[in-house]
């Protein structure tokens, strides 16, 4: 079942109605679990296909229980290794011998996100003896929640439990329902209209690109290929997040946000704090912080601190990249993210050292510097994404069609073009938000939102129902 589909919304509507009909915690837990199992069951008709997933979840629960019993807490590291190992094996990472893999088709939908949740539980339960007891039903609801199963967002268990295991709750307010509908409508539009148009543009551009094209057209085709994908990925993934966050409102859930206008970022560190935010937060807590702390403890001089920070960032964002896939292309994607974010950190440190704090601040607050940085950040991410969406063969073909000077021209044009477009968008956004009435941005007033949402809904329905356009799959579903 696709998240951006009417069947998903119908399931959510039925589940939310049942969920809100009962007052007891047990009723809500079992209702949510039933909805999640219904959703999961649409991915395979065979029970055998779910066995590896069930095995993984059972292993995670045993690990969690083991961490909460004093006599078995010593198995913390083996359990962590085993959990990650089973995940890598089930996901069939290419560095493992293929003979070791299971020989039948099985469901791995949302497995990566389950791993993050299971590791979070294991680590927290081990770190804190006071970590709350997690029942099996709560554990299943946390790991299998149909709203966040496919591609997150990655919530913390404490927050999840806080919202689900509350004994008494107020009925759904019209504001919550309004917020939910708004997010669902916006999400649908992003997934079914914007991402459909953008991936269509990229496919057409890829088909059109050839060495026989007129040089100028070839450059523009190259720019269209490069630029359409990050915009598509954003529309697709953030649209999905909007839908599930909106659906969550009907269950009284405030699911964490995953995006905060990432293309407004003027450096890569800022970008990753706005893109797939819950993954960045998870990695900060469980990779960056422990790694930095450990290395700081072992560092002989304070002079090493900045470099240690840069290295810890490199490792963290290298892992972010590598997590996305199992092939060598993703290794390069991971390296590009690690080098980008780590390098960004080092650049800031060295520049601040060279200029001094005051001049450094003056420079970074300069309008043109800031706009150029934004364009550069977008361009860097755009080109690093080539190793995300294409193969070595395809990259070679594109490079061959463009030629060395063509590639450089595409990069330059993408950088300059995105600088101009993004700064214009930011300026337009600021201007629109500055139009206020009764102290509130006019664009965020409910009357305006009603008009905008209706318009988006009409366009989405026209595309899906009348044009019969197949809804694009959620890209992150594959991870």
């Amino acid at each position, binding site marked *: 079942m696709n998240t951006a589909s009417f069947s998903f919304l119908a399931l959510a509507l039925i589940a939310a109605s049942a969920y809100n009909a009962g007052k007891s915690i047990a009723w809500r837990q079992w209702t949510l679990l039933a909805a999640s199992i219904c959703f999961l069951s649409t991915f395979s008709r065979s029970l055998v296909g779910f066995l590896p997933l069930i095995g993984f979840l059972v292993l995670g629960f045993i690990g969690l229980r083991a961490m909460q019993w004093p006599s078995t807490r010593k198995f913390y590291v083996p359990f962590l290794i085993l959990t990650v190992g089973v995940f890598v094996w089930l996901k069939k990472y290419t560095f493992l011998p293929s003979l070791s893999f299971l020989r039948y088709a099985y469901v791995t939908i949302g497995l990566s996100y389950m791993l993050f949740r299971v590791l979070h539980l294991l680590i927290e339960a081990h770190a804190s003896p006071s970590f709350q007891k997690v029942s099996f039903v709560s554990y299943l609801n946390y790991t299998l929640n149909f709203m966040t199963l496919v591609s997150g*967002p*990655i*919530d*913390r268990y*404490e*927050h999840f439990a806080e919202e689900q295991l509350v004994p008494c709750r107020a009925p759904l307010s*019209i*504001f*919550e329902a*309004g*917020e939910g509908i*708004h997010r669902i409508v916006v999400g649908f539009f992003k997934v079914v209209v914007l991402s459909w148009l953008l991936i269509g543009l990229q496919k057409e551009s890829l088909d059109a690109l050839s060495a026989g094209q007129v040089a100028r057209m070839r450059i523009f085709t190259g720019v269209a290929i490069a630029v359409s994908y990050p915009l598509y990925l954003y529309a697709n993934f953030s649209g999905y997040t909007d839908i599930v*966050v909106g659906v969550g409102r009907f269950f009284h859930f*405030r699911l*964490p*946000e995953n995006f*905060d206008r990432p293309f407004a970022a003027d450096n890569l*560190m*800022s970008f*990753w*704090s*706005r893109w797939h*935010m*819950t993954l*960045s*937060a*998870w990695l*900060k*807590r469980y990779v*960056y912080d422990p790694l*930095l702390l450990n290395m700081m403890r072992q560092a002989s001089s304070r002079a090493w*601190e*900045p470099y240690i*920070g840069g290295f810890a*960032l490199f490792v963290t964002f290298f892992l972010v990249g590598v997590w996305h896939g199992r092939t060598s292309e993703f290794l390069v994607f991971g390296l590009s993210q690690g080098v980008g*974010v780590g390098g960004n*950190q080092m650049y*800031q*440190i060295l520049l*601040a*050292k060279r200029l001094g*704090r005051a001049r*450094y601040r003056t420079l970074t607050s300069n309008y043109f510097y800031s706009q150029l940085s934004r364009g550069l950040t977008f361009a860097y991410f755009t080109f690093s994404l080539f190793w995300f969406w294409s193969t070595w063969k395809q990259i070679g073909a594109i490079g061959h069609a463009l030629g060395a000077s063509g590639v450089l021209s595409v990069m330059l044009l993408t950088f300059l073009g995105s600088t101009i477009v993004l700064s214009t968008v930011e300026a337009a956004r600021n201007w629109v938000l500055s139009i206020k009435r009764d*102290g*509130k*941005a006019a664009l*965020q007033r*409910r*009357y305006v*939102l*009603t*008009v905008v949402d*209706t*318009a988006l809904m*009409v366009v989405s329905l*026209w595309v899906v*129902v*009348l*044009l*019969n356009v197949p809804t694009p799959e959620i890209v992150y579903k594959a991870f």
Partner: protein
Amino acid sequence: MSVVPPVDALFPKRSDAGVSEPHSRGASGESPRKFPRRDYLILPLLSLSTILIMAGIGEIAARLLWTEQQSNSCLVYGSAEGTRYKPNCVSVTKLAEGPWVTNKYNECGYRSSAPCGPKPLGAIRIVVLGSSNADGFMVPYEETFAAIIEQTLSNRCERSVEVQNLGVTGLLISGAASRTEEALALKPDVIFLVVTPNDLLRNFMNEPRPAGGRAETSLIDRFVGGMEASRAVAITRHYLYRDQELYLRIFLKSHGDDADYLRPPFTSIWEKRFQEFDSLLTAMAAKAQSQGVPLVVISSLYRQQAALLDAANDFPGTDPEAFEREISRIASKHDVLNFDVTGDFRGIAHTENLFYVANGHMNAGGQALLARSVVRQIFANHVLRACTQLSGPYSD
């Protein structure tokens, strides 16, 4: 003094909680959160107004992007029987989903490239009677079935073959029948009468509608009529109806009596329509036979019939060939030959490509297939003996 940027700035705020601030509308100051009662009325009205404004903009955009010229300036509307084209007239027409078409009519007002005067010596002359499908509705002349059979037979028969097309879009079956004498005056070697379900249906427009039918002047009918005239709706249908299954489902559900010829046994109204056709054909056949001119009935198709040919099993109770069988039965009663063209439309993967998707009439592809089927059956039935004797058996 350290110049290292604070680590927390590198990651999302409130990351420990994994929660960000609530969405703007919820959090940005509905304080105190009170929902005014008037908004229960204003918000739905705003929503409805938006839909109406978008529909208006959509309609204007559709009219600008998909131009249409359905009315044919050469058509003279008289009484139903008298509807015909002006002699020596040229007009330009276009369906929103089709190409621009230039219609040229000869000195008799027939859509034919050949003059309608005395038949040239040694030439074979074919006369076509019927309505839109005979006329080649919204299809360029060279691509109409009449022009294609003229060209094909001229090549095959090694002698001049001309088609005088008396087909008029909108002509009723009674109107076509009333032109039999005009057709015979052209001294044809054969007359083709092209019949479609609509020709029979429209012939009885003044008859009482079946039970459950609505008064035609009701508000609902006016609204539906308005929607039918909408270009945006037509274009939307064009895209929507590319899905064959969906098209059939909608067609069968939304068309009652109009689609009952697909649902045998026929209703009493349809039985009456066939009886009327029977008597018209009796008169036509008698006139043609008295002058020794073969009369051939061709029961042509609309998109819904073609679509059902390979999907009837998915729609229980339907039979796309029922109409054709009934026409064939009536024709054989009067020793009139009937060409069954349905077989040639069966087994085609995308029959929607042979029709104007939303309009339902044959496009150039459908007319070409119709022509091929007719030519094949001309040879199979030795209809034009002079030609078939010269050329031998026909094959594609």
